[in-house]
């Protein structure tokens, strides 16, 4: 039992990532309101970012900035003392892509609202079907 709890808690980031992914995915497909769909999309994307960020963590390490400051490095750098920088770099790009998609999605929603005067999916479908 203790092992189980330990395993459960030891991977709690994984749990949260999976839960958020599920929430976001569900909202993207099932929500009727287009804005809610977009919020779901953002949650889905941040969940993936959480996954990448949590894989960069190392035990007993610090942020990925060298604390020697300027100049040449006198002694060897202890790799294990810094969190992995590469996933962070990838996720910076992913955040930017996320906000770009968000902007375009919101612009399209405003345009949909101008055309159909609603942003509820079922009402739009009704208008289109006519």
């Amino acid at each position, binding site marked *: 039992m203790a092992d189980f709890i330990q395993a459960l808690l*030891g*991977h709690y*980031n*994984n749990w949260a*990532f*999976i*839960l958020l*992914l*599920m*929430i976001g*995915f*569900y909202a993207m*497909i*099932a929500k009727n309101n287009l804005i809610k769909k977009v919020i779901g999309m953002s949650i889905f994307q941040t969940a993936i970012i959480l996954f990448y960020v*949590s*894989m*960069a*963590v*190392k*035990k007993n*390490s610090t*942020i*990925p*900035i*060298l*604390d*020697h*400051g*300027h100049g*040449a*490095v006198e002694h*060897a*750098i202890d*790799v*294990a003392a*810094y969190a*992995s*920088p*590469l*996933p*962070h*770099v990838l996720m*910076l*790009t992913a955040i*930017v*892509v996320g*906000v*770009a*998609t968000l*902007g*375009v999605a*919101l*612009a*399209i929603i*405003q*345009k949909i*609202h*101008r055309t159909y005067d609603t942003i509820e999916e079922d009402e739009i479908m009704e208008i289109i079907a006519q």
Partner: protein
Amino acid sequence: MKVIAALFSIVLGVVLLVAANDLPIWGDPESPVSVHLSSYFIEHSVEQTSVPNFVTAVLADYRGYDTMFETAVIFCAGITVMTILRRSHRLRKKNVPPRPVREGQDIIICSAARLIVPMMQLFALYVLAHGHHSPGGGFQGGVIFGASFILLALAYDLKTVLSRLKEKTMMLVSGLGVLVYAGIGVLCLFLGGNFLDYSRLASILQVTEIEARSHGILGVEVGVALTVTCIMLSLYADLASGGEMDEGL
């Protein structure tokens, strides 16, 4: 639909749980992510680029090509939003939903904004310039700079901001930002290196190759910041005014 969606997301969750089984232990310093490429960056980025912030070094140099397209993505989003939302004078007055009436400008908010905005802009420049040594860089600096304009637009109104920073200038600068980035890359081509090989800038800047990389990173970060500042403001202006550029929130 809801049932299907719930089913799909549960399947997704279960699949991911199964996959989680043989993932490396969380926080393990010996995991492949920490060992294979990341350790190279931690060990070599200072000696190769003289940038102590590994994230900045990897972002703007080792994977600078990604970042160039990241800037292009932002630029692309700005143009797309502008093209989608803008409408002509003839259609402007028609079909506009009633807007919340603005009850004058609040003196407290306006005065506070006046105080905060210069600080924000200064901080944004600091974040941009100090990205080599502390968290931050072109993107963060640009967003903060853009946010300072958005704050001004929220406190006063959009017209005030757009009279200071003309829309045409704004879009022009956003294009220039990407051009600065790609231009530095092309400059490296002309100097005989590969695309974005900043070490070739050494002959122009009269510094060592390692310092040239550091300066090159700063150069492209400035380009990123220009684009991001202008596009963030333009996204806000377009979305908050429904493409009419007259009044914000």
